[in-house]
């Protein structure tokens, strides 16, 4: 879909992107991750042709990315911006026309999204009079009103209540199922894990990782165990000896305690069970599933160590 090849960009001798090469897979939701200042916004702006790269090039469906392709791209920036004095209907119609839709198509599409996002009562209200959440919906609609095949969404769920988060998530899955390609830039790791099939991790202008979630997680083994037991906390702590560190524990109904442990060295589940046997009654032991936070931090730490 989008091929980014050896792209570099500097601002006043400060490198924002350094030889970045990527392939954004078609019909998938790809998470764009990275700490602040990693180069995400610069990369997004280059994909929107808002900046031109100093080196390298971008291809869209095999062609060099050019202005004509922008009508197939939808963009939701992190810093939201709308014309405050236009009504919801005018706003959507204006941006739809600007993206190349005819007057009739623009009106029709604006109406569709006003209904789809449950904004009918606010159709003729100026944006300045809308609540933050409603303005966020309008902003989202602006990004998709021209039915783009490629969506770049920067923190698309920020500012929404749980009901609207669910609504937008469903829409994004609908887009994906319809074959649209989505880039989701966010700092919310849980959301990336829930929604994305691929991730791109940037740090200091370089690509740290670009793969599917499965591939990323398969190479990552958690250091944490979760144990459920019955017995005293002192006996449990003594049994861990120096092989495992107790991170935290909570008491569950029925006198069961759930503890989270960090292993030291190359200790296994077998070692843990051996340590605990005879001290407490073990109900369950499992290796904790890694989450995106762990993967993210781990990858960055590895990079720092290198």
């Amino acid at each position, binding site marked *: 879909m989008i091929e980014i090849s050896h792209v570099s960009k500097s601002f006043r001798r400060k490198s924002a992107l350094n030889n970045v090469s990527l392939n954004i897979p078609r019909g998938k939701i790809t998470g764009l991750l990275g700490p602040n200042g990693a180069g995400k916004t610069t990369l997004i702006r280059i994909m929107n*042709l808002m900046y031109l790269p100093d080196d390298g090039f971008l291809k869209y469906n095999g062609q060099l990315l050019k202005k004509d392709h922008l009508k197939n791209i939808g963009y939701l*920036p992190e810093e939201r*911006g709308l014309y405050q004095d236009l009504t919801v209907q005018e706003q959507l119609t204006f941006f739809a026309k600007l993206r190349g839709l005819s007057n009739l198509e623009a009106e029709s599409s604006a109406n569709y999204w006003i209904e789809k996002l449950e904004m009918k009562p606010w159709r003729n209200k100026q944006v300045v009079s809308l609540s933050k959440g409603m303005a966020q919906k309008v902003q989202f609609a*602006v990004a998709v009103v021209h039915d783009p095949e490629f969506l770049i969404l920067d923190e698309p769920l920020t500012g929404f209540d749980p009901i609207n988060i669910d609504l937008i998530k469903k829409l994004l899955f609908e887009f994906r199922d319809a074959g649209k390609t989505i880039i989701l830039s966010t700092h919310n790791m849980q959301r990336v894990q829930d929604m994305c099939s691929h991730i791109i991790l940037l740090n200091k202008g370089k690509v740290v990782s670009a793969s599917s979630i499965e591939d990323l997680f398969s190479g990552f083994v958690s250091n944490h165990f979760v144990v459920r037991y019955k017995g005293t906390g002192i006996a449990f702590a003594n049994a861990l000896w120096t092989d495992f560190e107790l991170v935290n524990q909570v008491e569950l109904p029925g006198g069961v305690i759930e503890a989270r442990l960090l292993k030291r060295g190359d200790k296994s589940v077998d070692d843990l069970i051996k340590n605990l046997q005879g001290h407490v009654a073990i109900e369950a032991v499992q290796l904790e599933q890694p989450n995106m936070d762990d993967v993210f931090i781990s990858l960055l730490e590895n990079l720092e160590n290198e």
Partner: protein
Amino acid sequence: MRSILLISWKEIRQRVFNRSFVLSLILGPVFILTCVYILVKAADEGKKNVHVLIADPGDILQGVISSKEDPNVQYSFVSDYLEIDEFAQGKPYQDFDALLEVNEKVLNNKKVFIFYRDYLSDPVQNSIRFTFERRVEEVLIEEFSDLTVDAFRQLKQPLNLDFRSIMNPTNSNEGEAGWVGYFFGSIIILFTLFYGMSILRGVAREKANRVVEVMVSIVSPPQLMMGKIIGVGAAALLQLVLSLVLILSGLYLFQEFLFSDFFLNDSLSGVQVSEGANELLQHEFQRVRNNEVIHLLYDRINLTLMLPFFFLFFLISYVFYGAFFSLIGAAMGSEGDGQVLILPLVLLLLFSLFAGYFMVLNPASQFSSLCQYIPFTAPMAVMVKLSMGYAIGEGYLLWISFLILLLSSFLILWIAGKVFKSSLLSFGHRLSLKSLFRWRTRT
């Protein structure tokens, strides 16, 4: 192109379809027409119902004086001496505004005093002087000559040795006409300033609320800039045209219903101008009778010449200054930023007003010539120069000014486009000349 038109249309709608536009469209012409009315009335003040008492103990005027020549000045006679104190204090004289004392030796010493209560305006003084002199002239002819009055006046005409500039062979009043050009130039400057600031505020606001981020992901920054300049300019032009239509309609209605007395054709009906009266006398008579403001407004403005060039120079100077304003707006780091560059630009516009004023007073100076070729002052300079009239064979100077301004506008648009492109997505900085130069050179 469609994007530019869409952005322009949004800007037009934003500015035109709101109450403040309609309000300013009504209030602007109403204000100007009110000013015109007040000026005309002020210029005419003192002409109304001035009652002059002529004390003529020697019966020199024989109780005759033509009051037809100025219906606003009424004359009455007394055949006795009248002390000034008596005139000032006496009850029977309180209705009189002035006392014209005709002494018995007036035909020899040609000395007459007129004592007034409140200062009489120049037109009224001229009217009284003109009427009285003509009556004394008639008496002198009757007393000392066998000639008819008309024949005497023909003979009396002085030789009119009229010195005229080869640059102005018709001897039109350049200074007076220059103010007309100054008025048109000022309109250009004021509209440019008002709508230029509107562009600047619009760009700064869109930067502040980050809608530019969405916009430049769809259109290029120069397209956005052009859309804004064209849209705001169209709104300005619309307001200008509608205001002019309203003002001209108002002036027409004034002419028909309020100022009808002032127009020569009407006023001539009540006046007896002798057939032998020459051009000079006619002119003098007309000056006495006519209101100066009316004369300037209705006779001196050559609308068919001024209006096309006025709109042409308005458009180009608007683009020239508008590009500057949009450039500053794009380069600003926040809505309150940019004073350091706005002030010089506003001062340049105000300098244009000064330059125009100087040109009216000193049309032949080198500075006046220079102002025509400086893009910042050219719109004003050309309007003043045009109203005063280019000398025969020098009309091409207007087109040189036009060309310089046009090329300068393209240059500034090009520079503004580059700055727009580089600076539109920069936020939170403080604007300086250094950063502006850096953005101009960055691609």
